[in-house]
């Protein structure tokens, strides 16, 4: 009885591993024998134990989950150690070559060899794609972390007075940013017990109906909490755009400068600023 392909591969595990390592060395002049050998052995063992006649043609088979996990782990650690995506991809392709070469030595029927080679190819190619996805995910995590940091830095909430917070918004106000701004603002209002929030938009380059909508939402949310919003930093161009677009801001207090917004806030809080007798004191 002729051995089936998976049995052959399992038996020749050592030969496969050796061949694979030598191929890796050929591809990569910086090949670090010890490190790579261990990783490669882990993977090869896991793969060959999981492979059997029933899942040889099913790349999504449940048995391969653990193998995928090991591979993801290797891919992520390689990404962190500075391997290029190509190098990690080549890792899989050299493995495939090793498998197929060993298989071709022991399977005499060319049709069976071809069929089984195709099946194994599919499985390994799928794994190669996984390694790329792992690499990309790693990069996306970095980008997303950086984006969060930028967002946090660019919307500080400042306590300008007892009960008054100011929020200078710098940059474009899209819906994602609005969420962050709103969350931040509302949280600060609750924590500081402020009843007035001044939203300064002099740093917002373009105000269209969408941006206006985001501002209106922010004002509505602030009011639900029991605080009031003043929008300052309205440039003349914005006033024109707002009217031409038919945006209704009649419900919102708007001022052209932060200073006048602060004045309004004081009025609302029944506060007055008085000049003391004497001259400017410079410590």
């Amino acid at each position, binding site marked *: 009885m002729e051995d089936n392909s998976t049995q052959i591969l399992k038996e020749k595990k050592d030969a496969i591993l050796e061949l694979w390592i030598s191929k890796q060395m050929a591809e990569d002049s910086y090949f670090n024998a010890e490190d790579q050998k261990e990783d490669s052995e882990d993977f090869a063992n896991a793969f060959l134990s999981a492979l059997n006649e029933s899942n040889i043609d099913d790349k999504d088979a449940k048995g391969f989950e653990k193998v995928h996990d090991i591979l993801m782990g290797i891919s992520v650690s390689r990404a962190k150690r500075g391997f290029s995506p190509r190098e990690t991809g080549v890792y899989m392709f050299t493995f495939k070559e090793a498998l197929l070469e060993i298989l071709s030595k022991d399977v005499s029927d060319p049709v069976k060899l071809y069929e089984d080679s195709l099946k194994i190819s599919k499985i390994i190619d799928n794994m190669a794609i996984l390694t790329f996805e792992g690499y990309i995910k790693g990069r996306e995590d970095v980008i997303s972390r950086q984006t969060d940091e930028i967002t946090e830095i660019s919307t500080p909430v400042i306590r300008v007075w007892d009960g008054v917070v100011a929020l200078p918004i710098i940059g474009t106000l899209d819906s994602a940013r609005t*969420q962050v701004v*709103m*969350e931040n603002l*509302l*949280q600060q*209002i*609750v924590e500081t*017990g402020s*009843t007035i929030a001044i939203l300064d938009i002099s740093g917002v380059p373009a105000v269209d109906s969408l941006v206006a909508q985001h501002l209106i*939402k922010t004002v*509505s*949310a*602030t*009011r*639900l*909490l*029991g*605080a009031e919003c003043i929008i300052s930093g309205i440039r003349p161009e914005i006033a024109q755009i707002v009217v031409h677009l038919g945006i209704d801001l009649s419900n919102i207090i708007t001022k052209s400068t932060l200073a006048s917004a602060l004045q309004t806030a004081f009025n609302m809080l*029944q506060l007055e600023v008085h000049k003391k007798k004497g001259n400017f004191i410079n410590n």
Partner: protein
Amino acid sequence: MERIPILKMGDFLLVTIQVDLYDQLAENLESDLVNAVKKHNSKGVLIDISSVSIIDSFMGRILGNIGVMSRIMGAQSVIVGMQPAVAMTLVELGLTLTGVATALNVEKGMELLRSKILLSEGQSYDHDNNTE
């Protein structure tokens, strides 16, 4: 049958909502409140929702109803302590609860109630307690 407790604090009634309001409970609250306003001749109703983590359109309607009912009975009302996540969700839903007075917390809510009451009684609110 579960009922939400209503506390009398001088001229005011304080309602603290801490559980999810399902239909029967909400209806009971509405009638209990209206009856309490009449019984104590209350001038103000303060509803504390600082423990409420979900307000859907049903609950929003109840809060609006309470506001209108109180006003018809001659009492001012204010809702205090709305959580930021709830406020943002309501805004997204399109429920702005216009016509409902809000305040940050119980203390500020009471201040607001007092000034609203004075206003409704035709007096202006003066910090030194002088009425015009």
